[in-house]
């Protein structure tokens, strides 16, 4: 199979999943529908994996679909960063689609067919972003991802969901249209091209002010990266069912934002243009601010999903920081953090969802003593937390390591400050994640025993359904495994 066909296959399979959801859903076979999605997901992952082989051997598989405007093509090319993002999105889609079955049924959600359809379509858009060969294709799928996830955010159709949906769409489209599109058009005006080129497309003599302005336009334009103060959409998106929060709002959607920033830094600006520049320093400062502020806010959140959302905002800023450094190490660290944070945070959300399904509890303060009745869930939460904080032997530690190395390499006068920020941020992560584990395992249950609950449920509390628990254990193990394959990632991402 030619590499172009493989790319097409990787893009079409999620579409096929959406179609199969509709067909089986309408024919009234929910079991077939829910079986087909993970299988097609596995196929998608296999297709992306095949592309990975070629990329590792130095190939850059390409697919040009059509020329939309003169000089602007709808075209795809697989390069290391996109491959990584594609692998993460498609790989975790398999696990999530299994988890989602357990969650949606366990939580008695309505409109499951629509839910799974838009879920598959969102993955399609995410892969389109991953493989985009130029800014136009990236922007096309970036907007598609916003619009396709909107029905998932507003899934419950309540007033709260509608309000959140408005904020979600409002901020994401506002940033992408007024900043990102403007930046793209300005780049087009300056360079006459929108292609991603190794080494960048902006001329080396572009003025420093222009570079700074453009970089900030791109960084804030990729609103999905949730840089403060344009982060409000992410906590709002938490009204969605938990599988959406887990895969889309911890992995696919938010990573689309930071991925776009990484791509732009590497392939539009080029590292040489940015390293040590004012633009780099400005973006690093914004990223550091977001990192710390979001972590502080996270500590004060009692709603578990909101706390995780702010944690995501903080952790995304690591990737932006890595990109902003504009050094090989920085980009490596950013890319690595995409994968490491994905595995860790999806586990945390899976756990939050499992707790919700099993106990209908949403708040951290209600979790006392639950760890003893839901040992697997809380153990997985613990492991993933360690990865997010960055403690070996878990994947997250590598990303933090390279970031710190990168911070020292930048050569700014106050590089030590960035080092300090990274350390404080890790410390704050301990404060917002560990209380969950501590309450779960060590605090006494508020009522007589594990069989009673504050909510007045009649059934005794036990682990969430099998289909929920297995995926979260798997992703927790993945965080562990990533620690040991970090070397391969580093090879892949060496720029």
């Amino acid at each position, binding site marked *: 199979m030619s590499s172009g066909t493989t790319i097409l296959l990787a893009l079409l399979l999620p579409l096929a999943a959406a179609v199969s959801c509709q067909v089986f859903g309408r024919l009234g076979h929910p079991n077939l529908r829910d079986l087909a999605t993970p299988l097609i997901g596995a196929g998608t992952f296999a297709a992306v994996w095949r592309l990975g082989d070629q990329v590792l051997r130095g190939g850059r598989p390409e697919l040009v679909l*059509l*020329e*939309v*405007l*003169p000089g602007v093509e*709808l075209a795809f090319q697989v390069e290391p960063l996109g491959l990584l993002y594609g692998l993460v999105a498609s790989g975790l889609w398999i696990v999530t689609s299994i988890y989602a079955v357990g969650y949606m049924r366990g939580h008695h959600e309505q409109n499951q067919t629509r839910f799974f359809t838009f879920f598959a379509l969102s993955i399609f858009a995410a892969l389109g972003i991953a493989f985009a060969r130029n800014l*136009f294709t990236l*922007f*096309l799928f970036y*907007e*598609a991802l916003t*619009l396709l996830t909107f029905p998932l955010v*507003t899934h419950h*159709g309540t007033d709260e969901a*509608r309000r959140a*949906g*408005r904020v979600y*769409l*409002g901020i994401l*489209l*506002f940033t992408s*249209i*007024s900043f990102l*599109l*403007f930046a793209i*058009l*300005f780049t*087009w*005006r300056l360079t006459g091209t929108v292609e991603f080129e190794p080494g960048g497309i902006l001329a080396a003599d572009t003025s420093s002010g222009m570079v700074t302005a453009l970089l900030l336009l791109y960084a804030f334009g990729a609103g999905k990266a949730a840089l403060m103060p344009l982060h409000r959409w992410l906590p709002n998106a938490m009204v969605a069912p938990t599988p959406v929060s887990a895969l889309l709002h911890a992995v696919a959607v938010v990573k689309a934002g930071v991925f776009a920033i990484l791509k732009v830094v590497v392939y539009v600006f080029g590292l040489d243009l940015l390293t040590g520049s004012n633009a780099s320093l400005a973006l690093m400062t914004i990223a550091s601010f977001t990192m710390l502020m979001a972590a502080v806010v996270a500590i004060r959140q009692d709603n578990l999903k909101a706390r995780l959302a702010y944690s995501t905002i903080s952790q995304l800023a690591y990737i932006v920081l890595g990109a902003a450094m504009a050094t090989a190490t920085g980009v490596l660290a950013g890319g690595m953090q995409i994968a490491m944070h994905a595995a860790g945070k999806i586990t945390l959300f899976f756990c939050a969802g499992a707790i919700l399904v099993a106990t209908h509890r949403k708040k951290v303060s209600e979790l006392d003593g639950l760890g003893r009745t839901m040992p697997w869930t809380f153990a997985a939460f613990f492991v993933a937390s360690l990865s997010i904080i960055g403690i070996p032997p878990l994947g997250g530690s590598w990303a933090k390591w390279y970031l710190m190395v990168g911070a020292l390499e930048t050569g700014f006068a106050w590089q030590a400050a960035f080092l300090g920020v990274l350390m404080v941020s890790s410390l704050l992560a301990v404060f917002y994640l560990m209380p969950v584990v501590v309450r779960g395992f060590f605090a006494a249950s508020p009522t007589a025993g594990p069989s009673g609950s504050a909510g007045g449920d009649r059934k005794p509390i036990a682990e969430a359904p099998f289909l929920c628990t297995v995926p979260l254990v798997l992703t927790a193990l993945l965080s562990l495994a990533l620690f040991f394959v970090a070397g391969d990632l580093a090879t892949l991402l060496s720029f």
Partner: protein
Amino acid sequence: MIEKILVLEVVLPLLAAPVCVLVRHPRFCRFFSLGIVAICFWIAVALLFEVRGGGVVSYQLGGWQPPLGIEYRVSTVNAYLLALVTAMALVVLSFDSRGGPPRVPEQRRHLYYAVFLLCIAGLLGIAITGDAFNIFVFLEISSLASYILVSLGGHRRAVMSAFYYLVMGTIGGVFFMLGVGLLYQETGTLNLRDIAARLEPSLDDRGTVLALALLVVGISIKLAVFPLHHWLPNAYSFAPPKVSAFLAATATKVSFYLLAMVLFTIFGAPFVFGELRLQAVLLPLSILAMFLASGAAIFQTDLRRLLAYSSVAQVGYMTLGLSTANATGLAGGLVHLFNHAVMKGGLFLVVACLLYRVGSVHIDALAGIGRRMPLTAAALVIGGLSLIGVPGTVGFVSKWYLVSGVLERGWTAAAVLILLSSLLALVYVGKVVEAVYFRKPAEIQPIDQVREAPLGMLAPAWVLAAAAVFFGLTTNWTYGVAREAAELLLAGGI
């Protein structure tokens, strides 16, 4: 061969109209007019193929040589417009409105088709002719026909809106006529190319400047340039929905062509944009239209009025492209003619579907209709996304070139404003989509009995919705042609 049948483009619909009156059979008239328009469409497409790449096809009426006789002259600019008008007429006429406008009794329905054909003939005539007075004649034919069409809207206010439209349109027509008269006084000819060749516009020549002013204001009324747009929202929202679809997709587009032709071909870009600096007026007005009309659209509670105000805003984008006076921006404005015709035509056809099934297009009445009429609602979403300018739709193509053209001119602030104004479209489209999909149906107006629109209505609406996506991804025949037309106009040709 093509130059021999060129004249049929106008003559056929003009002659078909009295045939409809004579035959008086509504079903016959419907299919007859559809057939005539199909032939016109075929001629227009053949012409477009013929002239693409710089060709010109000319026909002299009665064999009289120009500048004495009337010349029909087709280049890329007007072939593009002919194709646009006939294509939209074809789609709109194929829309099965199940018995036409409600207030027209069966035995007089043939007159409706006759008037429709006259309107088409007038619009095609404006686009095709190379004679200034002939333009005025066709302008009046199309305008009179459209007043009648608007007045058939069924609602009592339709008649009032049509009358208001008539008053405004007549004022516009008189201004245009006076402008042509002054030009005739200056140059002694009515042939457009001859006028352009003889006219030596300068700021000291009051007659020329006055002629330009009269022509621009006259056409601006017909084009609904802000702040001369007041007739439009009423006319579009009380006309029969099919008529709104047709007028929104064609009438303002032809006026835009006329404006571009007057500015670039007759007076020439160096005079209008270099010496006179018309952009100092046109650019602020365009931006005001984009913001104020979009802002007004946000507060509308009736979907038709909302779309009508959105049309005023879209005219702002077109005139903005005009005021850049460079190839990219002008091509952006010209391609927006087609793109806006496709999306707004499609949206008005969706309105017609909704009106037929629900009986009202008040936003409250549409609450929850997405579940009852999924296909209609989906077409509405596609049209709406295109109005916002989401990539992959035609709206994005327009925006891309308009912003590029404005940036090329160095107007960075205007570029930002274009992008910001599309956020207003996001608000008004979002308002409709939210009602259609997320709001609970109003209790006074149960929608349990509402079914999906019939195929004869749905198909034309979906043809335009599909076109909005298709031409958002392949632009060789839209932007490619518009670019050629823009370069031709800037060089002073037609």
